[in-house]
């Protein structure tokens, strides 16, 4: 099967790749661009470990084809920090031990950042429902929810 040439923007960088029309955006990020931060936990859009932002919208990159990324603005976990300055969510996740094994962390950070961009003052329930598409098997979510809500509070105070 012939491959398609895709030009897109990932974390602000212009990138190009050739992909089979059956390959997902996640496959392309990981295998063609060496951006292995997004993880494949299920391949069916159920676990959220592959979460990325596409033109500002939170998506499971395993459910989007690589060819569909053409001309889009993609943001992954690798682009969350500002140079060597961590995003407040990243900092708070470390301080709160909001990760144990860390495999779900990239997806949860991308999803949580997306939540705070849309809703700077989420309730606990809103936070839990927003993150319901991101499975974590280690933490029981307690420290994750607290880290997201505390980050939201700090960001509100700072603005």
């Amino acid at each position, binding site marked *: 099967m012939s491959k398609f040439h895709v030009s897109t923007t990932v974390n602000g960088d212009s990138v190009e790749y050739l992909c089979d029309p059956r390959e997902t955006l996640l496959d392309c990020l990981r295998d063609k661009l060496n951006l292995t931060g997004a993880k494949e936990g299920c391949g069916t859009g159920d676990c959220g470990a592959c979460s990325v932002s596409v033109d500002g919208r939170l998506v499971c990159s395993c459910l989007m084809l690589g060819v569909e990324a053409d001309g889009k603005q993609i943001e992954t976990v690798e682009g969350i920090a500002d140079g060597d300055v961590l995003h407040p969510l990243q900092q708070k*996740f470390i301080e709160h031990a909001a990760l144990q094994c860390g*495999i779900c962390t990239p997806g949860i950070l991308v999803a949580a950042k997306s939540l705070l961009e849309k809703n700077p003052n989420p309730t606990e329930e809103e936070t839990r429902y927003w993150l319901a598409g991101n*499975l974590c098997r280690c933490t*029981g979510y307690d420290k994750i929810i607290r880290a997201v809500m505390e980050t939201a509070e700090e960001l509100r105070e700072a603005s």
Partner: protein
Amino acid sequence: MALDDRKSEFTFVGTRPNRPDGLDKVTGRAKFGADMSAPGMLHGAILRSPHAHARIVKIDTSKAEAHKDVKAVVTRADFADVPFKPGLEGEFWNVLENVMAGEKALYDGHAVAAVAATSALAARDALKLIEVEYEVLPHVTDVDKAMASDAPVIREGAADYSVPEGMHPNVVRYHESGHGDVEAGFAEADLVIEDSFVTEATHQGYIEPHACLGMLGNDGKGELWCTTQGHWIAQKTCAALLGIETSQLRVTASEIGGGFGGKTTVFIEPVALALSRKANRPVKLVMTRSEVFRATGPTSSASMDIKIGMKKDGTISAAQGVFRLQGGAFPGAPGDMTAMCAFAPYNLTNVKQVGYDVMANRPKQAAYRAPGAPMGAFAVESVIDELCKKLDLDPVDVRLKNAAYEGTKASYGPRYERIGLVETLEAAKAHPHYSAPLKPGQGRGISCGFWFNHGGETSVSLSLSEDGSAQLMVGTPDIGGSRASMALMAAEVLGIPYENIRVTIADTATLGYNDVSHGSRVTYASGLATIKAANHAVEKLCERAAASWGIPTDAVKWENGCAVPSGPNAGDFDPRPLADITAHMGSTGGPISGHFEATPEGAGVSFGTHIVDAEVDPETGKTAITRYTVVQDAGKAIHPTYVEGQYQGGAAQGIGWALNEEYIYGEDGRLQNSIFLDYRIPVASDLPMIDTVIVEVPNPGHPFGVRGVGETGIVPPLAAIANAVSHAAGVRMRQLPMSPPRILAALKDNG
């Protein structure tokens, strides 16, 4: 093991610093199993049986081999049975049989062949070109049916010496233990309850699928990168299955995306190496989620009969349990563990427990967090709860009345050393949760839980750098922050800042053997090893200081990171900080490092008590967990935040097991729910905050008092939640998961 380095006052231990791998994990930089590549790498894929039980008549791989992108195809003939290492037996044979089917496919998802191709897509396409002829055989997936006289035989001759005569060949191990006279005990009771319970198989559900990258040359030398809880066991097993020398295979553990017991053996690793040997190129293999569910270890399903007698004052006069565990198509279901743990929290005069390990046409069970214990606790603690209810007794008071303590003869034999069960019960009783009012429709449940904990073979190496920093190599993969705990313990002994210690999970070529990260052993055993290795280095530091002062070594002690003269005749010298000694180590005798290689034996058993509030919707049968409190003895919490995390994670997995998760098999013996959409683990909106209380009753077998905390946290939840749901619904729930249809059926049966 002498513990002359015992401590109870701490500088670093008990603080909550950021984990050393935090930055890598929040930036996407951390390399997990599937994140590694190699030049010239091929991609592998595995063909799996669609049948629960079938004779493999013929496998034709010729079309796949002819595919232009395919570089290798392997079947069972490419593994070690005869050509390379004759006489593979015992668990190695079982693992090989599981890794690649021999004469029969034993479960839906059993591997039968594998290919390596130039791309993952090509590998998947090539699988369709492999033709397998099966003769489908009768199958059985249910534990009670697998023990019945008319059940199809999974494998003749799999049973060991322990199985009584006359049992079905699917019963492969038998356990019986206890003490006293249970019949006499039942006669003394004011109330005897006898009941039966069932739990379904659940999966560990780690979010990272199994993944590896293997390279094996025809010279018998290999490299393996894989996500594993134990790379030495992976090394040993892969070497045996491929017929090579253990030492010629270097295994590096990737960052691991959860294991919970499920990554304590190998599945795809030997396959990647076999493909690599045939193709003479590195091969990467990554499981899909569906492969993880169909072909890697779920926990056992269980069928259990419990009989307990109680006096009016709450004293348990006798207790008896029969535990039948189904462990898939291989021996290994932890019927013995279930039996031994079931009554372990209690000081019983008369107790008897029997466990069966039963084979069925399901994937080979793997350990899952305190393997076997949660099911038994569910059955036993449900009956105790029912006795409390019928005798109108407080469930915490009854457990306190019967609780085991130091010196109690455990239900499974030995006498306990210092344990903390009573302390967890007292803390639970004093917790505001226990006395908080309940709303209509809600119920409260409690349960105790026990786990043995484990020591295991352990090697640690610590080396000091000239600038006074330290490198610590441990061999137990860090699944939940253990590098932070190791650095804290090393800092405590050396007296240098936590940040000055770099902890690495060493590969199999750079450190001695290490048992797997299982059995809640890491903070206990690698921690003890770290303390011993650091002390070993401190001895050398003191020797160097003593030599520089011209005084005997025993006239020097180590205090706050410095060598200082000690005793009346030591002389008056300025303390020499660690960095001062290491700065000159090259010219004063050479490098300074410390080591530990042994098998620590004092893991110290662990107990917990959980309190749960549940609310049942009578119209839908859906249960909401409205409040949850975990109380557990940690011995000594090295990094309390990560101890809390273990408690919370265990509770959450228990909630999933109790309410939702189960392997569902069709009449055809095929797994019907092999994706996360259908096998639903708890999501954030399913759970409340999970409160934790860390009880600290020091373990006499660890210098700082540590008891492992990883596993005990999943033992009480099934029972505690079942008790809460039973009170909320007004009907005793005897089968897990308590999914909405089961609760509705129970409500209906109850009128």
